Structure formats: structure tokens, C-alpha cells
């Protein structure tokens, strides 16, 4: 055959061979292993409970998904042989999520945890089709007889972080890198600001909306623009360590969010707001194993051991530490009571009267920014 045709055949052959080679590699999603076959002449062992987790980001994000995975490992550690866990990571919210959930159900999982708000509708749809499988949705609000929601009271450690920020800021400008204008994020911004104002009434918070939960270059840019405007203590609601590392690069302060990020920024890290998901996950698995599972909406916080504010930096002065400890004890005694009147929003309207405490409805429907936060909530028109 002539030269071009020979080369074409050669290239085609090489491409097919390499596709076959790469295609036969180990896949990155670990499939649940089949239950151990019983040894002969012994009574069959009890089938372990199959539990699956669906993550919105990669396990290695050192943030949100990493914390959930620690929770899953906690379940494995506690229940050992009684449970077989598996997970799927980086599942985009939307149609793909529904396919993954159905896939997990078909693999025999009896309880499925979906760890992001955007999985809500997919979970609801699949839950209706499989009434004997338990569905648990993090940070959502739709429930069914076999679908319940769970979340942490993130705004509690956000409030504690605010106290530290108020005590450490030199410019009285705080920064917040926010993802989406949903009530959960607004609660965190407001709690952060209120906490800071409780020790330093002159504090102002600037917010930048990045419209993503996880995009390190964009988070870095947002952090940079906040620092350019004078913010010297940052908090974020996004899932990576980018904001913390940007603060370290510029000699400012920031916090870890979702997990312990102290290793990423030795000088900038003031504390990490995190969740011990295993506390809740152990309860959920226990409920299924004890057959006491019931639907509901669980919001756990510092009191239940689900949320915490850890690894406070040595740079924090003693009087600020004491205030943090006092606030912590107050929240253990009065769970969720971060929003206490009088509170005005940043247009001057009073949203909470004196001596009133924001209840669950108030918090779930929050659509304002407190006085001291600059800017408006972006609307998607």
C-alpha cells in the first residue's frame, strides 16, 4: 500500500489499541463490594447494610466533600461489618444526579445520602419510586415518608468566627466570598457580621458573589478583590482552600470552612468552622439498623456535636478567646439562638424586634442582609 494509506492504518491501529488500553483501566468510582459469601456449614452472616453517599465535589477538595467523606469513614469505623459504604464523587446537580441515584438504588443500597442542596428535586423524584429505600438529603427542605433532610447549624460556628474576626481586624472591614444567595448562605453572612459586631460595633462586611460552590481560581480572584478593597479577615461559603491561601499570600487572615484547613495557611488561619458529619451519619445508620428511622428535618449544631469551631490560632488574644468560649456555651444552652433582636437589615428596616429570637421559620426564609453588610442580594432576573 502507498505511504499515506499505510500511515493512516498505523494511526488507526494505534488509536484503537490505546483506547482499549485506557478503557480497561480501573475506574475511579469504587463500586460497592459484594457481601462476603458465607463459609460452608456455618449459618449465613447477616447481610451488611449497604449505604451510599453522593458527593457534589471531589473527595480531595479539603472542604465540604472531604468533610462528608470523613463522616462516611466514621460510620465505617463505628459499625464495621454491619455496614458496607460506597460513594460517588463530583456528581453534577441536575439530570445526571437522578441517574446516579437510581444507579445507587439498583446496586442494592438501602440508604442514600445526597450531600448538596441542588440534589433536592432528583432525590424527591427517585424517593417516590422506591418507598422501601431511605433517602437523606443534606441542606434541603423537601421531605417524604422515606426522604428526610439534615443539616448543620453552620451559622453557629460562623458566628464564633465573626467574634474572632471582629477582634482581629485592623481595618474594620471583613470580607465574605459567597456562593449563591440562598437562605443558608445569607444566614452565614449575617451570623458572621453579627458575631463581629458583638465585639466591635464598627465592623462592616463586604460580600462578593461567585455563583459557584467550588472554583478555586474564581474564589482566589474574589478574595483578591475583597482584600484590594481593604478587607483583612475573610470567610467563605465555598468549598476549597483557595480563599485561605489567597489570604496567606497577602498577609491577611481567613478561616477554614467545612473542614480543618489549618495546614494550608499557617499564618493566615484563625480557626476552622467545621462539621462532624459522622455524628449525624452514625445516628442515621443506627436508625436504619434499629428500624427506628423516621422522616423529619434535622438541624444539628454545636450542642449536638455536629458543628464546631476548631484550631483557633495562637495569634488570637485571650479576651477574644474568652468571648468565643462564652458564646459557645450560650449556644450549647440555647441551640440556634444566633439571631437575637433588635436586628435591622442594611436598608434600615427592622427585621427582628428587641428581645425576639429568630426561630426556624425566620432562619429558613431569610432574605436580607444585616446592617453592616454592604451591597444588595443579587437577584436572578
Amino acid at each position, binding site marked *: 500500500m502507498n505511504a*499515506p494509506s499505510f*500511515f*493512516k492504518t498505523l*494511526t488507526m491501529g494505534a488509536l484503537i489499541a490505546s483506547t482499549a488500553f485506557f478503557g480497561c483501566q480501573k475506574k*475511579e468510582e469504587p463500586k460497592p463490594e459484594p457481601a462476603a459469601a458465607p463459609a460452608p456449614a456455618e449459618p449465613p452472616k447477616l447481610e451488611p447494610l449497604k449505604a451510599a453517599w453522593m458527593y457534589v465535589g*471531589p*473527595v*480531595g*477538595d*479539603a472542604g465540604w466533600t*472531604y468533610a462528608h467523606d470523613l463522616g462516611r469513614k466514621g460510620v465505617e469505623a463505628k459499625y464495621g461489618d454491619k455496614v458496607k459504604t460506597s460513594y460517588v464523587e*463530583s456528581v453534577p446537580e441536575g439530570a445526571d444526579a437522578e441517574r446516579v441515584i437510581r444507579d445507587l438504588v439498583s446496586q442494592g443500597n438501602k440508604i442514600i445520602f445526597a450531600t448538596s442542596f441542588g440534589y433536592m428535586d432528583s432525590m424527591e423524584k427517585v424517593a417516590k419510586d422506591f418507598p422501601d429505600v431511605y433517602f437523606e438529603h443534606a441542606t434541603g427542605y423537601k421531605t417524604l415518608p422515606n426522604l428526610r433532610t439534615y443539616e448543620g447549624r453552620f451559622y453557629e460556628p460562623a458566628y464564633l468566627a465573626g467574634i474572632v474576626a471582629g477582634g482581629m481586624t485592623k481595618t474594620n472591614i471583613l*470580607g465574605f466570598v459567597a456562593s449563591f444567595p440562598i437562605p443558608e448562605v445569607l444566614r452565614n453572612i449575617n451570623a458572621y457580621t453579627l458575631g463581629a459586631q458583638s465585639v466591635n460595633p464598627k465592623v462592616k462586611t*463586604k*460580600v*462578593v*458573589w*461567585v*455563583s459557584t460552590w*467550588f*472554583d*478555586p*481560581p*474564581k*474564589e*482566589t*480572584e*474574589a478574595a*483578591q*478583590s*475583597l*482584600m*484590594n*478593597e*481593604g*478587607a483583612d479577615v475573610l470567610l467563605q461559603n465555598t468549598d*476549597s*482552600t*483557595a480563599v485561605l*491561601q489567597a489570604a496567606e*499570600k497577602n498577609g491577611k487572615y481567613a478561616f477554614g470552612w467545612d473542614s480543618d484547613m489549618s*495546614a*494550608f495557611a499557617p499564618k493566615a488561619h484563625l480557626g476552622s468552622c467545621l462539621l462532624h458529619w459522622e455524628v449525624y451519619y452514625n445516628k442515621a445508620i443506627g436508625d436504619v439498623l434499629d428500624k427506628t428511622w423516621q422522616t423529619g428535618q434535622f438541624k444539628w449544631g454545636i450542642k449536638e456535636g455536629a458543628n464546631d469551631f476548631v484550631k483557633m490560632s495562637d495569634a488570637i488574644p485571650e479576651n477574644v478567646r474568652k468571648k468565643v468560649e462564652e458564646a459557645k456555651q450560650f449556644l450549647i444552652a440555647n441551640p440556634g439562638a444566633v439571631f437575637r433582636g433588635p436586628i435591622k437589615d442594611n436598608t434600615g428596616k427592622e427585621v427582628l424586634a428587641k428581645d425576639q429570637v429568630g426561630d426556624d421559620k425566620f432562619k429558613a426564609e431569610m432574605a436580607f442582609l444585616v446592617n453592616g453588610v*454592604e*451591597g*444588595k442580594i*443579587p437577584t436572578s*432576573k
Partner: protein
Amino acid sequence: MNELALLVAATLAAGTPLALAALGLLVNERVGVINLGAEGLMLISAVTGFAVAVHTRSPWLAFAAGAASAALVAVAFGWLVIWLNANQYATGLAVSLFGGGFSAFVGVGYVGRRLGIELNYAVPGLGRIPFLGAALFREHPVVYLAVALCIFLSWFFWRTRTGLVLRAIGESPDAAHALGYRVRRARLAAVVAGGALCGVAGTVLSVAYTPLWVEGMVAGRGWIALALTVFATWRPGRVLLGAYLFGGVTMLQLTLQAQGVHLPAEFMSMLPYLATVLVLVLISRNPAWIRLNMPSSLGKPFFPTQ
């Protein structure tokens, strides 16, 4: 005033990966090969550069490795497109998709790992000038590389014989072939060089800009670079300005937010592409303008035996 200086600095930093990738694409397109795989090349080089940086702690080795990995993929692309005359657009898209999946696969073990490399750079004396120092001279060396590269490419393409030959190949490979120039080898060399530059751009993102690896972290900058080359009508100086403009639009939107001004984010993200479409419309109205600006053989396969 300080905020303005910092905004300028941030714009330079944000525009540099775009500028480097777009200059690489300019080299490609000036010889008539359009490489739509820029995004894939940037992703592959980002993960390679990051992995090398994690293991060797040397940013320079990381950049070299990133450029080399992208150049390698560019060789494969060049082979397919120049010798086997595969459709350039389809092959480019394939490279783009391949790069996305391959980088995610390889990078699984590197998500969440720290680099531990020193990140603060400043030109020794100039970094301390009151306004200009903060604005211009406290950048990672690649920023200055992009500017130097722009000047070099301008000189190379318009003031040297080799550059003239390359441009001729881009305008009419048949004529160049008739004159005895090795069209296919020259095109391959340009594709590899362009690929290497895209590689440097990708590594900038994962090693210098945000020292992290995350799947898909290039987030469309390769496509922006492609649009940028067209927007700049294939001239290095305009590419650089366009890159700073595109990069600046993102930073401006975030800065305005931080100042309390609310422009819809979607509108700002849309602006660079709108500008590109506008430029394309303007230069396409007049056939003479097209001939003046676009390399004539762009995207067309070349058959030396005919």
C-alpha cells in the same frame, strides 16, 4: 488610589494565562492550523505541571513539564491534522474533550494537595515605587514573560525571514510549497510551539495563579483564548491588550461587587464574547478586510502532491 493599583495588578495576573494561550494559538493560526484543543492542552499541562511541582517543589521544572506535556499532545494533533489531513476543527474538539477527561483522571490523586512553593514575587528595586510598583512590578515572572513573548513574536513574524515564510505558508501553502519550502514540517513546528505555549498557560493556572489542582479548573479559558486570537485579528500586540481586557472584565466585575455596585455577573461574563462576535462581523463585512486580517489557509487541509 491603592485599589486602582491593585486592580491593575490583578488584571495583569488574570490576563496572563489568556495571553500566553492566545499567543500560542496565534502561532498556530498564522501558519494556517486552527487548534480548537486549546482547552484540553491547558488542562493536561495544568495537571502535569501541578503534579511535577508537588513532587519536585520546583516551579521551573513544573512549567517545563507542563509545556512538554502539551507539546506532546500537540505533536499527535499535528500528525493527525497535517499529515493525515483530518478535519482540523473536529480533531481540535476531540483533543479538547480528551484533555478534559484525561486530566481529571490523572489528577484524582492530586486534588487537595498543597504545593508549598513560595508565591510572592516582586521586581527587586522597581517593586517599591509608590503607585507603579504595586500596579506593575509585583507579579509572577510569567506576566513579564507574556509581555516579552508578545514583543518577540511581533519581531519574529514581521521582521525575520523565517517569520515571513511562516506567514506565507499561512496565506498560501501551495505557493510556499512551489517555492520549495517544507510546508508540513513548518506547520508541525508551529503547532508544537503553539502547544507548548498553551502548556505554559495551563501550568500558570495551577502552579502560579491558584496553587491547586481541581478537575476542570481551566474553566473555559482555552475557549476564551481562541476567541481572543480572532478578536485581536491575529496580531500579537492586540492579543496582549485583548487578554488584559478579557481578564480585566472578570476582575472588574468582582471588584465592583466588593465596592457594592451590582452589575449582573452574567452580563459581564458575556461581554468578551460579544466583543469577539462584533469584531468578526466587522471584519467580515468587507472581503478585502478579511483578506487583510485572516490567514487565508486557516483550517484548510494542505495536500502537497496536488
